[in-house]
């Protein structure tokens, strides 16, 4: 390879191919934080199938559209009928669309971490400057960001639509801001739960099924119990039961602190004291997901 092979040039043609041999790299090496950011952006793009095959773009893009279309329709209706208010609160939108959000996290969390485990790419990452914590942080942040994009985009559609429909600016801005905080918390929680479950199995199919199962079964069980509690007039316990599923947890937090109307039976959200417990549980769960991921990857290593 070190020998030069000049291609015989055609008369008047100055083009030659030279094998220039090995060149050393003496440019900058940007280190750990740059590598972590690269992993973050690669994972975030991957969550929407960018930089991957056409096939893997279909589902995330489809879910994104499904998330936004109802918002667009609501805006169209509000503008056309000159309504005084949007048909749905900003904070309520994600709760209504929770099936789509669950489907998204179930499909993309395994895509993000199970692939690296299944194809044993993880050792290649850890043989480079980044540490376990950098990997976990990049993956967690990437999926949470992807989910935030998914859940915040329809809110943006609603907000822009509301302004176009000349609804009250201050009112709408406050609702929009509350909605954004709520979906940010939801993104962190769902991404954490999804990644923890997905990081246990290298099989993508198992990961998808397990995430869907955890999210829907917990929600189904909690809302059934809440309905029973409501029917038996023990409304005091409704709020406490709501702590046990991710969706009702978010619902509780936002109805206690973010001016949302609760989706609990009888619309009885938690009181402020109970709300504080909700916030603690929510933050505790997010921290626990992070801690579990760290523990998991400390073991995977090489």
């Amino acid at each position: 390879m070190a020998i030069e092979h000049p291609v015989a040039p055609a008369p008047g043609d100055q083009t030659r191919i030279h094998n220039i041999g090995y060149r050393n790299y003496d440019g900058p090496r940007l280190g750990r934080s740059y590598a972590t950011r690269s992993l973050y952006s690669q994972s975030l793009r991957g969550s929407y199938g960018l930089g991957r095959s056409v096939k893997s773009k279909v589902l995330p893009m489809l879910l994104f559209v499904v998330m936004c279309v109802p918002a667009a329709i609501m805006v169209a209706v509000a503008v056309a009928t000159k309504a005084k208010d949007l048909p749905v609160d900003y904070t309520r939108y994600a709760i209504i669309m929770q099936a789509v959000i669950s489907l998204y996290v179930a499909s993309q969390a395994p895509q993000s971490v199970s692939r690296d485990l299944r194809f044993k790419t993880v050792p290649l990452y850890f043989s480079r400057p980044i540490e376990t914590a950098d990997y976990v942080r990049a993956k967690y942040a990437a999926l949470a960001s992807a989910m935030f994009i998914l859940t915040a985009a329809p809110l943006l559609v609603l907000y822009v639509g509301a302004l176009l429909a000349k609804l009250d600016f201050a009112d709408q801005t406050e609702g929009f801001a509350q909605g954004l905080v709520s979906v940010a918390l939801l993104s962190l929680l769902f991404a954490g739960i999804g990644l923890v479950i997905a990081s246990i199995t290298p099989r993508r199919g198992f990961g998808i099924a397990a995430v869907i199962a955890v999210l829907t079964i917990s929600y189904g069980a909690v809302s059934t119990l809440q309905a029973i509690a409501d029917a038996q007039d023990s409304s005091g316990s409704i709020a406490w039961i709501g702590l046990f599923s991710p969706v009702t947890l978010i619902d509780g937090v936002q109805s206690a602190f973010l001016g949302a109307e609760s989706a609990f039976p009888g619309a009885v959200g938690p009181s402020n004291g109970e709300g504080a417990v909700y916030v603690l549980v929510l933050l505790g769960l997010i921290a626990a997901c992070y801690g579990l991921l760290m523990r998991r990857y400390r073991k995977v290593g090489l």
Partner: protein
Amino acid sequence: MDNPALWITLRSSQVGVSPKDPYIWSVRRRQLFGLTTGVAQVTTFLNVTVIATESLSKRFPRVTALDRLSVDVGPGVTGLVGANGAGKSTLIKILLGLSPATEGRAEVLGLDVATKGAAIRERVGYMPEHDCLPPDVSATEFVVHMARMSGLPPAAARERTADTLRHVGLYEERYRPIGGYSTGMKQRVKLAQALVHDPQLVFLDEPTNGLDPVGRDEMLGLIRRIHTDFGISVLVTSHLLGELERTCDHVVVVDGGKLLRSSSTTDFTQTTTTLAIEVTDSDTHPDGTRVVRDALHARGVEVLDGSNGLPGAGHILLLTAQGEETYDVVRDIVADLGLGLVRMEQRRHHISEVFTAEDEKRKEVVGHGN
């Protein structure tokens, strides 16, 4: 070898290579046959230790993976030999700063593995033994990503990826998804991701695993070039001794986490050198082989029975070289008899023979112990 001028030029063109380097031998052989092929370009630094361990131990609750291993590895291609479970992978993990040693210390490129892990991993490449490639991305995309994970800026990552993939021998296929590659091509991608950030040292864990003989040869040639052309030191593990003999300057043998032996490949294989000679017949000497054998006997050179009962082997004389003068003796005899020298080559002892000998010695020791 009565041409001192030739020797001086040869030696001075081999800056930094010990006279025991096998490439000196190969050059000398080529010169003997009047061929003047280019001397392998060697970029090594004298007196630099690439890897140094000092009574390095790693104990797991049930097994001792490394047991007071002390070894120094210089620049060049170094083979790490050992059976499965001998502690090779554990050693690489410790050297990458990913797993703390139970006791002892180790340095890679002068950096302590316990405290400077990240700095080491920036300068070192690692090619794992197992499959590690996602099937649904192209080699280019994958290696670019890995280059960025090593800290290369985006533009440099793309440029280095194109260069490195070309050097490992991947051309148009690098744009296709890795899933459709053959084992040989996958091994090349794995090697490319270890080299893409231009490390000073690469750890190659069983790089020839699963390759056919041709692929194996190509991979071994590539490994040799990583050092000779790219100037990167290599630590390569294998359980096939013949491979290491052909590629490595130095061989480290571990067994049960203990250092069994660490010496240069030439020490392993050239403690005694056997020469194989083949001569032509002429009208005056219808049986050239026999005449030369008699002449060698007369000059006191021991001729071995090299026939081994193989047909045609009778034309080849095997003799023990007692230093450089033996070459001259052979040349003079053949020239005086007016015969043609068809071949004169070194028959190396194989590392495996050394191992067998070591093994038997150890068994004896164990036997005596009982």
